[in-house]
């Protein structure tokens, strides 16, 4: 099966700076890749997804980049705010919507 994992367990970012969260995957079986945000004690919240045949997608303050050559996925958050502090997960999704999650990156926004 596919393995999805993250490079950095914790990312400390100063408020107003841009954040980049990275994710590597080993097997290209997913139809989509998705980023989720999880605040403490809550369920994951969908941020943005990207089809496996795309290399970039932008949302509100977020951009996801997919590099299939090196099997790498990243989430860029512009002008990071205190409310962005959370654990971020990347996940691969198959055609049934089944998600395979990475371990997660804790983002800490400092004033």
């Amino acid at each position, binding site marked *: 099966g596919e393995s999805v994992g993250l490079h950095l367990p914790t990312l400390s970012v100063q408020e107003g700076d841009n954040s980049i969260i990275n994710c590597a995957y080993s097997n290209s079986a997913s*139809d*989509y890749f*998705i980023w989720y945000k999880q605040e403490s*004690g*809550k*369920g*994951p*919240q*969908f941020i943005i*997804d990207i089809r496996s045949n795309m290399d970039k997608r932008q949302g509100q303050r977020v951009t996801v980049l997919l590099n299939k050559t090196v099997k790498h996925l990243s989430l860029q958050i512009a002008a990071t705010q205190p409310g962005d502090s959370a654990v971020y*997960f990347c*996940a691969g*999704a198959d055609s*049934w*919507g*089944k*998600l*395979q*999650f*990475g*371990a*997660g990156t804790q983002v800490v926004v400092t004033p």
Partner: protein
Amino acid sequence: SQTIHQWPATLVQPVGSPLSLECTVEGTSNPNLYWYRQAAGRGLQLLFYSVGIGQISSEVPQNLSASRPQDRQFILSSKKLLLSDSGFYLCAWSKQGRTEAFFGQGTRLTVV
């Protein structure tokens, strides 16, 4: 609008006791339904998914079972809990053919 309800929020159960966690979805029909488990400080692991009433697929061998008695109701059960069943259980739904999954608020289960 669609909403997902999951209860209870927290649960402490003794080893060997039964388990029943319930999840319901409102505002949509024929959703795909999922049960995930999250160990402390880790990612989520898919346990079960269902594409329709009575249709359950298990992703990993375990001490748990799932049922879908109604279109928008998904139940996670166990006859006898083990210590290793402790964790954060999350129910999710998605529209057929879509990848965006919406999660419930989760149930934190502690088996003692």
